[in-house]
């Protein structure tokens, strides 16, 4: 054995005689002996033999009935030791348990002794038990009793030991039995018990959050504990809670900041100092939580800046712990809403870490740099030489961290160098995890930044050859898609395809090919081999035939090969023998059904060559257009619904329905034989996962976009049957990650000047000779290299420098770009900082996407962001944002001023309006004027038709009439006493209005066509609108002096609401109509029930059936019915239904019935139904672009549709349309793209993001994102119907 062991053995005698002081005293001879024997063992086998023997001995001893506690303890020690050496000692577990439990028996036997000295739970037993067992072990259940008893003990040590055991051994099912006891311990007088109790509860919370939900208040109390230890322990729970729901704990920011400040000011007891650093663990925990709380939250972030800066400054000692704090600070600063000065400070600290000698610190430096460049890529340039050095470090950990960093700073310019580096490492890597990581990195980068299609082809082929088996399937699909895609340059397409065919033709000669590469080869050859004239079809078929003799991992591969052969054969006259032979072979003797069927089919097809050509045609460029939302079925669906077919319920709803049914049944059937649901199972059971449906090769080719979508984690869930189909069939819906022109962002509507600069700058570089490039890179590398540059460079240094300049090319250029911008473009309002910010944003998004491994699908957001024109002054944007607010106030003043049923003569009325005009005018600034050019729409947005007249003052002729219209509308708010006079009023006003309209007809048409339309609506001409003027027309109403109030109740009309009342149902007696009011937190449906016959109706009862994804409240209480005793003639009952949102759904229909008794006392029943849309629950979410970007990457479920944009011509129109119809807030328009975003009421977490883009020839690509696939789909569906 080794010298260390010898030394150990040499010192043993002294150790045993007690020279080591007291510690050797309680070591038994048996244990000593065991260790000695093991130590002396000459080989692993001998050691094993000794242990086995020992275990046998222990087995016998433990089975002995009379065994003393002391002996037991020793046996357990030996048992643990044996187990640690890798032997199975499970027979001893039950003995350990038994002994742990025996305490009770002993107590009984020695009942006369006070309980304080009870002998129940020895530390050794519990240790043994907790080492041997784990929470899922079957024996744990036997322990509960003992643990409960010990928790009740008055001895602190016992309680502590029990808590330690509980935290480790209790599983979710048993928490309930222990929880109350642990909870009690939170009030314990001793801090140590409280700490352990809090930590134990944290474990419970981790295992089953819903079980400890009711004691969140106690956690708060623990957080305020006077003992810093308890507070510190409570932070763990809060860390978990904050991770789950950040919004709920925002108010913790100020106290956390105070605590942190106190810590760094050394206000805590010195006990908590660690090498003179005050409470470092506590500091780091708080800093970590601040990162979570400050993310996407500028307000709370700004509170943190000062303290974070202080912490950063205090952490300047040269101690490992200081660096740990420093690192966490940097990470937090990069994560919270950015502050340029603070980031600069953090970046300076990164330098400290990177320049350190210790590899540990360099590792941290690289990590921190990755975080910093997310915010601002230019900081990487400073450290380029160090980074390159790290890349060559012999330490793998450092090397891979550096590769990771490079991966994160990849852009279009350095992608080739970086991919080359990664591929190099892929060659040498052995560990499967590292290989997988590298493969995903290379493929992601290649997909996102590839400069040329050939390069992409070669890179991916290389990856396949190096690590074929672990390349994910979608990489192959993307590759095929790239080759299949048509671009504008036909010649180029052809060349690429020929290239690919030649390349794959030669690859077939390789002895080993991974299955996924064979798939690609087969498909490419099958589709395009006819393009390569130099190759004879039969030659290729023969080669493919040879492939068939190989053994494949994936059984379907043979089908791929066979299909490829068939495709090639279909276009040539003579059939190769290889093909017919293989057909014959597979037709009869293949185990794979799919393959066999294919063989049979192809064999049949060979009989009829023309049919074969029809079925397997040479590829054409035409793609199928498919309506992904299946909106053509809408009519059919509504027809079916009207015939009483039950509404389609998504699977998960059906399941819950079934469960409730099952519960009902079990209640009725008497006995319930089902086991009770476990407290945590309920959540898990509802979440079901989809497995992508098996696809046969031929279909896969046709549908490859869908394959990539499902493989990258967006797979449609199984219950969305329609959608599953649609997303799989949708050929155009998904945007390719990048197209042949390279990465998408490069060509689309970028800020032109900037683009030019970039290209100029880039053009310059290669034009110069190599040495000049070097010099320029040296000047770019700022600080450390400047001096060394003058010294004669060694070959190695030069190589590194060249590499550095290549690797950092994109980043250094972008840094330089900012400068000409500043000089040349100042009047445009673009400051260099903003430029940098654009870059950094770009970077940031890149990484987050990559982090989530969502293979570049969302790459186009980067396009969008790169195109964001930052030249717009921030102040401008904000004032634009404020504008609707201003107008809104003006308008709400209107309604407030007029709504009370005062007698309002026309002069006064107009006066009010004029006043309003003035006020609006007064408030409106220059910007408003720009907007008011399109004022009708502004009016629309506010859902206040009349206001349009005020704002469109400019359109002179039209405005008069509009104002009249507006007045008419306002006046028409009823009042019993003034009806007659009013009606006169209205008539006269209407007359006036009409005249005006006539007079200025042309004017209106030319200037404000939209407003004129609105005017008509206002006057209640549309039959469905239940505006008061309706009742004006009704002679009865007026002659009887009774009006029917059908205006919105007070307080509701200030919210946006539907312009028209919708009639739900009516008969000769009653009429039910409704109006939707989009309150911020709820959808209010105001129901108007009007008695329209001459007699009173009685005992009216109104029921609504709510879709299961919604809930309805009436008068603040959750119910779905209300009743009215009596409704007099001409009276109208108004009721507000508050519809709340629980989850998304594709179809929502609010149905219901109205029961009433008419004057003959017969009960009548009216049924109605009205559709609800997702937009009814969407509310605008005011975000700025950066926030939007962050949210975009954090939402994982998306849905993309392409629709005809119809009469929407400009982006502005589109945004307005979306704002109006979908209630999404317009975030920004950039060129032909626009982003909008909304939030679902009540659920602050459910947001819906939309990225719209005009694509060629009158279509519009809409890309929805949210955290729920169903939500994205539902909004997409509504949108597509809206656009029809």
């Amino acid at each position, binding site marked *: 054995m*080794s010298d*260390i062991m010898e030394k*150990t053995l040499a*010192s043993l005698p002294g*150790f045993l005689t007690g020279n*080591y*002081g007291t*510690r050797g005293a309680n070591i038994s001879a048996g244990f*000593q002996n065991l*260790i000695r024997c093991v130590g002396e063992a000459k080989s692993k086998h001998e050691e094993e033999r000794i242990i086995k023997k020992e275990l046998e001995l222990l087995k016998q001893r433990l089975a002995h009935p009379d065994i*003393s*506690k*002391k002996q037991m303890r020793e046996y357990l*020690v030996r048992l*643990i030791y044996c187990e*640690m050496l*890798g032997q199975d000692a499970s027979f001893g577990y039950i003995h350990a348990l038994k002994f742990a439990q025996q305490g009770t028996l002993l107590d009984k036997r*020695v009942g006369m002794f006070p309980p304080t*000295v009870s*002998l129940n739970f*020895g*530390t*050794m037993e519990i*240790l043994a038990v907790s*080492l041997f067992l*784990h*929470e*899922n072990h079957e024996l744990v259940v036997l322990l509960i009793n003992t643990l409960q008893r010990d928790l009740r003990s008055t*001895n*602190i*040590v016992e309680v502590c*030991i029990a808590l330690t055991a509980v*935290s480790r051994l209790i599983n979710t099912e048993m928490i309930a039995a222990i929880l109350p006891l642990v909870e009690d311990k939170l009030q314990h007088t001793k801090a*140590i018990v409280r*700490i352990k109790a809090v*930590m134990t509860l944290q474990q419970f919370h*981790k295992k089953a959050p819903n079980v400890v939900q009711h004691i969140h208040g106690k956690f708060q109390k623990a957080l305020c504990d006077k003992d810093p*230890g308890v507070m510190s*322990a409570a932070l763990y729970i809060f860390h978990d809670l904050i991770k789950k729901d950040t919004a709920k704990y925002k108010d913790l920011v100020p106290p956390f900041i105070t605590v942190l400040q106190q810590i760094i000011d050394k206000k805590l007891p010195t*006990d*908590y100092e*660690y090498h003179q650093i005050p409470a*470092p*663990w*506590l500091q*780091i925990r708080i800093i*970590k939580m601040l990162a979570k709380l400050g993310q996407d939250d500028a307000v709370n972030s700004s509170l943190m800046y000062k303290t974070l800066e202080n912490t950063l400054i205090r952490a300047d000692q040269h101690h*490992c*712990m200081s*660096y*740990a704090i420093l*690192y966490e600070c940097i990470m937090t600063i990069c994560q919270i809403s950015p502050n340029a000065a603070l980031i600069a400070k953090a970046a300076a600290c990164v330098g400290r870490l990177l320049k350190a000698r210790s*590899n*540990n610190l360099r*590792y*941290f430096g690289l990590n921190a740099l990755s975080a910093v460049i997310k915010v601002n890529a230019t900081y990487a340039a400073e450290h380029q030489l160090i980074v390159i050095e790290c890349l060559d470090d*012999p*330490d793998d*950990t*450092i090397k891979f961290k550096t590769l990771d960093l490079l991966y994160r700073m990849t852009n279009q310019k350095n992608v080739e160098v970086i991919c080359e580096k990664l591929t190099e490492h892929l060659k040498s890597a052995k560990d499967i995890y590292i290989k997988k990581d590298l493969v995903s990195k290379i493929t992601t980068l290649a997909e996102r930044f590839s400069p040329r299609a050939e390069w992409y082809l070669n890179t991916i082929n290389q990856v396949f050859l190096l690590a074929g088996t672990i390349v994910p399937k979608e990489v192959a699909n993307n590759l095929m898609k790239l080759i299949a895609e048509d671009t504008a340059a036909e010649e180029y397409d052809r060349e690429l395809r020929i290239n690919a065919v030649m390349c794959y033709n030669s690859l077939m000669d390789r002895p080993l090919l991974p299955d996924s590469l064979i798939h690609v080869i087969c498909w490419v050859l099958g589709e395009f081999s006819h393009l390569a004239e130099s190759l004879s079809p039969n030659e290729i078929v023969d080669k493919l035939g040879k492939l068939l003799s190989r053994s494949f991992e994936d059984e379907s591969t043979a089908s791929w090969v066979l299909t490829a052969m068939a495709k090639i054969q279909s276009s040539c006259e003579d059939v190769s023998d290889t093909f017919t032979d293989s057909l014959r072979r597979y037709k009869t003797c293949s185990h794979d059904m799919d393959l066999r069927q294919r063989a049979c089919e192809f064999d049949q097809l060979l009989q009829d060559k023309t049919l074969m050509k029809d079925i397997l045609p040479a590829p054409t460029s035409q793609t199928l257009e498919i309506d992904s939302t299946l909106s053509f079925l809408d009519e059919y669906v509504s027809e079916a619904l009207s015939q009483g077919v039950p509404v389609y319920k998504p699977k998960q709803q059906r399941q819950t329905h079934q469960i409730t049914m099952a519960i009902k049944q079990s209640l009725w059937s008497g006995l319930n034989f089902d086991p009770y649901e476990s407290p945590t199972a309920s959540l898990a059971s509802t979440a079901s996962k989809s497995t992508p449906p098996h696809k046969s090769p031929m279909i896969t080719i046709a549908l490859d976009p869908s394959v990539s979508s499902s493989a990258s984690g967006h797979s449609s869930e199984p219950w969305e049957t329609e959608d599953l189909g649609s997303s799989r069939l949708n050929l155009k819906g998904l945007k390719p990650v990048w197209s042949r022109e390279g990465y998408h962002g490069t060509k689309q509507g970028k800020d032109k000047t900037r683009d030019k600069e970039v290209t100029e700058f880039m053009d310059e570089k290669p034009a110069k000779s190599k040495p000049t490039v070097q010099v320029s890179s040296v000047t770019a590398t700022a600080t450390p290299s400047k001096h060394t540059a003058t010294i004669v460079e060694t070959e190695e240094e030069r190589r590194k420098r060249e590499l550095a300049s290549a690797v950092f090319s994109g980043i250094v250029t972008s840094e330089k770009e900012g400068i000409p911008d500043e000089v040349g473009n100042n009047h445009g309002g673009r400051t260099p900082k903003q430029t940098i910010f654009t870059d950094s944003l770009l970077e940031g998004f890149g990484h987050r996407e990559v982090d989530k491994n969502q293979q570049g699908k969302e790459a186009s957001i980067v396009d969008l962001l790169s195109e964001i024109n930052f030249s717009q002054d921030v102040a401008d944007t904000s004032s634009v944002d404020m504008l609707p607010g201003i107008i809104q106030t003006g308008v709400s003043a209107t309604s407030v001023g007029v709504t009370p049923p005062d007698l309002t003569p026309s002069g006064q009325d107009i006066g009010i309006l004029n006043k309003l005009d003035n006020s609006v005018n007064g408030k409106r600034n220059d910007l408003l004027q720009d907007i008011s050019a399109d004022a009708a729409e502004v009016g629309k947005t506010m859902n206040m038709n009349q206001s349009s007249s005020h704002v469109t003052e400019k359109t002179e002729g039209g405005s008069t009439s509009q104002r009249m219209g507006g007045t008419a509308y306002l006046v028409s708010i009823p009042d019993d006493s003034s009806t007659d006079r009013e009606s006169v009023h209205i008539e006269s006003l209407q007359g006036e209005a009409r005249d005006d309209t006539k007079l200025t007809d042309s004017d209106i048409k030319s200037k404000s066509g939209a407003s004129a339309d609105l005017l008509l609506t206002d006057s209640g001409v549309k039959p469905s609108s239940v505006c008061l003027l309706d009742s004006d027309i009704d002679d009865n109403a007026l002659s009887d002096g009774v009006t029917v109030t059908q205006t919105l109740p007070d307080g509701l009309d200030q919210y946006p609401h539907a312009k028209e009342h919708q009639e739900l149902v009516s008969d000769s007696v009653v009429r039910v109509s409704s109006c939707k009011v989009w309150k911020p937190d709820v959808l209010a449906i105001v129901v108007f029930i009007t008695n329209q016959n001459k007699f009173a109706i009685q005992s009216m009862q109104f029921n609504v059936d709510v879709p299961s994804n919604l809930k309805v409240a009436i008068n603040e209480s959750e119910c779905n019915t209300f009743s009215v005793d009596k409704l007099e003639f001409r009276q109208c009952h108004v009721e507000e239904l508050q519809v709340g949102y629980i989850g998304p759904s594709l179809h929502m229909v609010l149905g219901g019935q109205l029961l009433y008794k008419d004057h003959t006392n017969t009960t009548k029943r009216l049924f109605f139904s009205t559709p609800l849309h997702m937009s009814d629950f969407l509310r605008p979410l005011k975000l700025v672009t950066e926030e939007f970007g962050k949210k975009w990457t954090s939402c994982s479920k998306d849905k993309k549709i392409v629709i005809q944009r119809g009469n929407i011509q400009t982006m502005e129109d589109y945004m307005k349309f979306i704002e109006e119809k979908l209630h999404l807030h317009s975030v920004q328009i950039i060129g032909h793209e626009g982003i909008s975003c909304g939030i679902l009421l009540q659920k602050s977490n459910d947001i819906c993001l939309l990225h719209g883009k005009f694509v060629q020839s009158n279509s519009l690509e809409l890309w929805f994102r949210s955290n729920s696939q169903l939500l994205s789909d539902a909004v997409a569906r509504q949108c597509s119907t809206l656009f029809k």
Partner: protein
Amino acid sequence: MMQFMLLFSRQGKLRLQKWWVAKLDKDKKKITRELMTTILSRKPKMCSFLEWRDLKIVYKRYASLYFCCAIEEKDNELLTLEIIHRYVELLDKYFGSVCELDIIFNFEKAYFMLDELMLGGEIQETSKKNVLKAIAAQDLLQEEADAMRNALEEMGFL
């Protein structure tokens, strides 16, 4: 959260293992073996961190003993290094200049110490004094129990 801690000698002998996550024995053995070979093959100047599967491994060598911890992705490696150091400090204080032998012969004490320092994979008590106090209290209980047992045995109850 720390997932497990292993103590092993330069010869690859496991001296102590503590798992805060439930794992099968088979997996434990496999992980232990794999990590031991990886870490023992690393050179002294190399950095103390490893990315291993989805975990991060932090290790440090004290004399002939390697302390190795597995932490999760979001955890701070340097901080973990300091947890190891604090643990060594505690052992040192308790045993009085600790050596590998102390841990071999008194490994249960080493476990108790770890249980006082860490709970459920998180650091529980950062104050050195408090941990030592807790251990002392446990020792006292043990002694009391022993004394009681002796008395009982003498009286013939057991």
